[in-house]
């Protein structure tokens, strides 16, 4: 009899232990973990933009062109690198960050992907973000070059198309100088986002003005 009672008591204790373990699993499954201080706010810089290509172009002579296969006869050939940019972030005149940004990839020929978060005290501040090209432009760029169109037949108009393509790429590239100078209020627990508007070719800021719920 005593043994039976002992077993029943033991099993009851086992049930309680199981309940405690399950409660532990439930608790461990959703532990409130600190993430940000209650008075945090961030200035986030995020964009993807193509760096400007700095190149030196030269016009090939008719003799040089004649040595090429017909489909390779590109009158204007260019060589160069991609620009790098100095990024400066200031808040109320104080430097928050300064760095050099360049295109992605090993050859830095990919778009510049930028994602930076800067902790800022909530409130109204004057923000100044500048992106400045570090290199001088090439002496002989494509846009300024004279491209005589000598192609005929099925390659007719190629030179003009090359000019047009170069112009498109130059327009898509980030300008030599970008500045955002703006004063706005950053609410607690909010992120102000500075992004590059590729159409307007300027930096813009997105601020959520409703308080965090």
């Amino acid at each position, binding site marked *: 009899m005593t*043994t039976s009672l002992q077993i029943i008591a*033991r*099993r009851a*204790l*086992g049930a309680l*232990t*199981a309940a405690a373990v*399950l*409660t532990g*699993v*439930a608790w*461990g*499954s*959703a*532990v*409130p*973990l*600190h*993430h*940000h*201080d*209650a008075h*945090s*706010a*961030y200035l*986030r810089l*995020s*964009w*993807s933009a193509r760096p400007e290509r700095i190149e030196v172009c030269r016009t090939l002579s008719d003799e040089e062109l004649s040595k090429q296969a017909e489909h390779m006869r590109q009158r204007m050939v260019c060589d160069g690198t991609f620009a790098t940019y100095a990024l400066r972030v200031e808040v109320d005149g104080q430097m928050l960050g300064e760095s050099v940004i360049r295109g*992605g*990839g090993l050859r830095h020929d*990919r*778009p510049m*992907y930028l*994602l930076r978060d800067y902790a800022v005290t909530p409130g109204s501040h004057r923000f100044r973000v500048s992106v400045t090209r570090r290199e001088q432009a090439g002496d002989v760029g494509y846009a300024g070059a004279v491209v005589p169109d000598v192609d005929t037949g099925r390659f007719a108009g190629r030179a003009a198309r090359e000019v047009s393509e170069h112009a498109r790429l130059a327009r898509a590239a980030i300008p030599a100088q970008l500045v955002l100078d703006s004063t706005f209020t950053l609410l607690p*627990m*909010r*992120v102000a*986002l500075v*992004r590059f508007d590729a159409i307007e070719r300027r930096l813009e800021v*997105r601020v*959520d003005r409703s308080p*965090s*719920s």
Partner: protein
Amino acid sequence: MIMVQYPLTVNMHALKRVFRRLLGAFEAALTWLYGWRWNPLHQSGTVSVLMLLVLLVTGLYLVLFYRVGAPAESVARIAADPWLGSWIRTLHRYATDVFVVASVVHAVKMFSNDRSWGPRTLAWVSGIALFAIGMILAWTGFVLAWDSFGERLAREGGRLLDVLPVFSEPVSRIFAGDGPVPNAFFFVNLFIHIALPLGMGVAFWLHLSRLARPAIIPPRALAWGMVAALTSISVVRPAPLGPAADPLTLTTSTPVDMVVAWWLPLTERLAPGVVWSLVVVIAVAALLVPRLTRRARVGSWAPSVVDPRLCTGCNQCPQDCPWDAITMVARDDDRGTLVARVDPALCVSCGICAGSCAPMGVGPGGRTGRDQLQALRSGTLPLLHQSNEHPIVVVSCMQAPESHREALRALGAQLHPVSCVGNLHTSAVELLIRNGAAGVIVFGCPPRDCVGREGPRWLYERMFNDREAELQPRVDRRRVQVATMAAGDREATLAAYRSFAASVAGLDAPSAPGVDETDALSDPDLYLCDPVPLAERLS
């Protein structure tokens, strides 16, 4: 027992002992609470599989209502459904947690019980792969919910992935907030979340590929009990869903699943390169465990060998081997039967084959049936002969708890340890009875906790169900008993002994000690099993 160790493995063996002690205490406590049949620690591997099944079933329901175009909203809708959605989603989450815990316990148990090297290397490595896949699945699952915790995990994943030269555009920019998170991101997560279990299936197949008759799910009562318990807590306490992710809003705290993402607070503070270095170090260390924990294949770790002169080709040892390490091959002499051959690369030295061979022709060195009889003659039988009474002989596994053995000795039992009860040749039992033992009670480990995997099962079959090599009909079955000895339940051990002693006490006195020692048991040919002719085997 010869113990040879490789120099670099010494510290590992010390670590094993520490884990074994800790786990042993924990197992004993759970046996005390639930009994060995319901001890979940004996079922760590099968509990993991059970949880995977629960995840599969609940996941199928959840995927019906999940929308990649509106992840947070669809999960919130599921969580708000009090009838099914809420508890099924919670059960999915809690099952993940239990899977992680059970898998870790399983690995620690295998490590501490010296089951992580040699023939078990494939199981260890595939187990590591299974766990890694499970963690990735959990990660993607939490991201799919796209609440504040999911976003936090996604950001951390993006931060870690962005230092690898894999993606042309940094993953983290997806969560920057300068555009909605693309549906493709959730689609890819969902695809990984659904496709990876298929990879898990392959790893699982590899994990079990070296086992004969693997136990895949826990005993039915335990399985349903666990599912019912998890369902109950899911209903009573649904897992909270954090606020929907908003890249431009910060949160002071996040409800983090610390069972799965216990590493998150640490990695968030470390540079991605450091985190990857840690991951690589941990992965390499885990994969090197088989190398670092290996034992020299001598002494108790020596693989079984076959004496072809004794092998009758009965085909029993291949059937009993829990690791499929024995095959029957053609003989190189003129006898018309096959002969057993042990593959040392697959043999884990469990010794089960020693108990399966009637003519005692197979087994690890020092543990064959003949060795067992010899050990009895030089050890236990002289003690029986010296005794004026007819003691009960307790045969127990060497893994059995010492406190139980001491208590049995105090009750007057004559103890005879064996490496595993599955090794025990039935002739040894007969020899004990014929030499004056009032009875023989064999205490095995809990069936699902046997280091030889199937020791208690085959022992019982050989003793009472005429499985080769069966206990001979001439042995009085009333004097033989098979029981379970589980750490943490000494009362059960003693109760089984007392009950057996009481039943034996009512029998006539056994034969006088020492009178029968030199009869049939000295001539194994008298109780050979029937050989299977070669022609029949090949047909």
